């Protein structure tokens, strides 16, 4: 089947679910014809005056290919956009997909890009229209919508802009091309430097945004690892007021010397307190801002421990189900074009939101608190009011509920609290008691359970009243290091330093984890990460600097605004890259040597299991027998000191040290992870007494 004269319009959607929603919205009866093609299902809708064919993409169908081909050659500056199956292995499906799009689009009179309205969406649609649909990218129209609801899709179809988003597409192309050039050239320089010395091939990667992001984690890790806590002293006290024991703190706060703190305590001991002053004031807490994607991901991490990658996946599913507006937004504003009253009324039909939604409608709360950040393409994230058509998974439900309750909160009135502070004198020293109570819940009531207010009531106190001092003591405290970056915290730092985009940041964080440069969440830099990062700092200081990345981001933004051309930006970037490569080429032998050392150290660390309990000086490691190729545990002192400690290992699955040695025999314990069974922990000692009694 191809688009015949009756199929006047040919629409490209970003994903299969989006294609179905668009087709349903545009079909007069709401039931478009679903056709099972060779590669995918597409839809034919009966529009008001013509038939409309809606075809899905599968995200990016086109990508960049290095035309020099040989992966060891650099610099490589000549690239070409090709179908993804030509650049990556195992993507035959993409080839079939593109062929089908080409076939179906033949004969269509009108072409429409209906992919997500952002840089990536514009690029996905534009490359398909250009390469699969005979260069229709220049004449195609663009549908712009922020939700996949029927009303928004119909409006976008009606108000469709002619001509694609040239500047967005140009910015998208430039971003991909610059990142590709930096990525392949720097990674090749590192990889080949090492290969020349060792003869072994192992990928060492670097990137325009990836490397400074690794730099953030390194900087924080360095602060934590080289942190010396400084002691200080506080004085904790408690007074008896009536029947209640009320805690109080020394008014001066931190005391630097223990002798000073001890003197204060001894001067206060066995004395009475006298109320000197009672101060009350009312404070107002404004509602929170509407969610942009970054603040939502951070909140989801704090509340549900969902990392940004997982929360983004959930947000995409909720968007494709038309339950929420487009999530990849940088805006914290809900413009007046959004009919808030009708969204509230729709939400009132969902039982668990019925009461708060009705209350907001009855009170005429339709003016949201607006945030600071803006995004010209999309508003802040809000619920569409559409009822979920399927049962949401636990995590989806949590995120959806958070979005709905946040939407309620931004519409509600401010909260008001009463703060009470009482000053108590004990001899020459002053202590403070404080209390907090809620006068008016306001938005807090609508945002529960995602905010908790702990009220602390002070008993009634009069000036000159005597209160008994029941406790006074010195507490030693230490200054604390900054916390390690969580994935959500790192995302915030990237936003703050303006590197990457809202669409790419989550992926970059995932990449540095996949490359084994960082581990865990909160994150710590691995030995490999330290070595590669240090090496980049030494030989490519500019790639690790935020200034260079930010400067390149500014150039992308300028392309988006039509202030400079893509070619101009590419030439600037290529010149900068070439000068970096020239500088580093002189140090290639040193780079190779350092990387060789790095990989050797990393390999040693990866195979280390723990201290040898036999010779007490060596380290037990995972080794491979040259003869049988089987792995086993052996001591590092075997050659040097002749320690013969050894033990067999399971031959299948991944082996990782647990950290704590076996309580019974002192040998290291390992965790074995294999595909066909649950992870299990065991002591490596084959004659461990605990193992024999089957207690491990």
């Amino acid at each position, binding site marked *: 089947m191809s688009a015949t004269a009756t199929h006047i319009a040919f629409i490209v959607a970003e994903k299969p679910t989006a294609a179905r929603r668009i087709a349903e919205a545009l079909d007069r009866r709401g039931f478009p014809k679903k056709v099972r093609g060779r590669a995918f299902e597409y839809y034919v809708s009966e529009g008001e005056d013509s038939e409309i064919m809606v075809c899905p993409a599968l995200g990016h169908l086109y990508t960049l290919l290095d035309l020099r081909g040989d992966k060891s050659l650099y610099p490589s500056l000549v690239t070409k956009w090709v179908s993804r199956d030509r650049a990556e292995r195992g993507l035959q499906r993409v080839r079939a997909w593109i062929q089908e799009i080409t076939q179906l689009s033949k004969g269509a009179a009108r072409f429409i890009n209906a992919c997500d309205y952002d840089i990536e969406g514009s690029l996905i649609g534009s490359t398909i229209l250009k390469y699969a649909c005979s260069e229709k990218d220049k004449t195609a129209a663009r549908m712009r919508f922020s939700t996949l609801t029927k009303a928004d899709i119909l409006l976008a179809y009606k108000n469709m802009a002619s001509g694609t988003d040239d500047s967005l597409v140009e910015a998208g192309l430039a971003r991909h091309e610059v990142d590709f050039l930096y990525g392949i050239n720097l990674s090749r320089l590192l990889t080949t430097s090492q290969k020349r010395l060792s003869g072994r091939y192992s990928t060492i990667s670097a990137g325009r945004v990836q490397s400074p992001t690794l730099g953030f984690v390194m900087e924080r890790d*360095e602060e*934590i*690892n*080289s*942190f*010396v*806590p*400084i*002691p*200080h*002293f506080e004085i904790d006290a408690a007074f008896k007021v009536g029947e209640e024991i009320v805690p109080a703190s020394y008014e001066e706060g931190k005391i*630097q*010397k*223990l*002798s000073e703190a001890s003197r204060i305590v001894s001067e206060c001991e066995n004395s009475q307190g006298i109320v000197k002053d009672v101060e009350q004031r009312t404070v107002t807490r404004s509602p929170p801002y509407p969610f942009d994607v970054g603040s939502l991901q951070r909140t989801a991490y704090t509340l549900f421990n969902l990392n940004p990658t997982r929360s983004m996946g959930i947000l995409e599913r909720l968007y494709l189900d038309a339950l929420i507006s487009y999530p990849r937004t940088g805006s914290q504003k809900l413009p007046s074009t959004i009919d808030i009253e009708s969204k509230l009324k729709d939400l009132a039909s969902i039982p668990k939101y019925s009461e708060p939604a009705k209350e907001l409608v009855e009170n005429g709360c339709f003016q949201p608190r607006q945030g600071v950040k803006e995004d010209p393409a999309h508003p802040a994230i809000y619920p569409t009011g559409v009822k979920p058509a399927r049962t949401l998974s636990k995590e989806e439900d949590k995120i959806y509920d958070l979005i709905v309750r946040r939407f309620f909160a931004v519409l509600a009135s401010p909260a008001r609290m009463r703060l009470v502070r009482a000053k108590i004198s004990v001899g020459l020293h002053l202590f403070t008691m404080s209390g907090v109570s809620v006068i008016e819940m306001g938005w807090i009531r609508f945002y529960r359970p995602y905010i908790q207010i702990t009220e602390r009531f002070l008993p009634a106190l009069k000036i000159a009243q005597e209160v008994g001092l029941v406790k006074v003591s010195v507490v030693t405290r*230490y*200054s*604390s*290091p900054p916390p390690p970056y969580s994935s959500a915290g790192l995302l915030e730092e990237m936003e703050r330093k303006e590197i990457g985009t809202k669409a790419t940041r989550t992926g970059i964080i995932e990449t540095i984890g996949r490359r084994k440069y960082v581990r865990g969440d909160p994150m710590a830099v691995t030995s490999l990460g*330290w070595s590669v990062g*240090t090496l980049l700092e030494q030989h490519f200081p500019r790639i690790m600097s935020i200034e260079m990345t930010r400067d390149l981001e500014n150039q992308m933004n300028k392309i988006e605004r039509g202030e400079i051309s893509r070619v101009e930006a590419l030439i600037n970037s290529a010149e900068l890259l070439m000068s970096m490569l020239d500088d580093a080429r002189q140090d290639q032998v040193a780079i190779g040597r*350092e990387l060789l050392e790095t990989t050797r*150290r990393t390999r040693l660390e990866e195979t280390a299991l723990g201290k040898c309990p036999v010779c007490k000086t060596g380290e037990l490691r995972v080794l491979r027998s040259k003869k049988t190729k089987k792995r086993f545990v052996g001591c590092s002192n075997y050659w040097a000191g002749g320690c013969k400690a050894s033990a067999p290992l399971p031959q299948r699955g991944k082996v990782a040290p647990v950290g704590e040695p076996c309580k019974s025999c002192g040998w290291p314990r390992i965790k074995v992870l294999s595909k066909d069974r649950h992870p299990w922990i065991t002591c490596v000692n084959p004659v461990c007494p605990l193992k024999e009694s089957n207690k491990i």
Partner: protein
Amino acid sequence: MEKCKICDRVVAEESLCRYHSVARRNTINAYRPWKEALGIAWKDYLVSLQRSPGCGEWVREVSNYLLREGVQV
């Protein structure tokens, strides 16, 4: 290439790598506020660091090294 006495990395300053050098500097600089706060001797300070909450990993390694080597300030 001379290796760091603690971690095997390349030496940056006085037998220690770049990271352990920073930790050593911090350890030495922090002795003064510790001494003022607790009237503590250098050796006791290095021992106390091992048990202090929030003490960095490199600082622990450096304080161990300084104890072992008998370094005085």
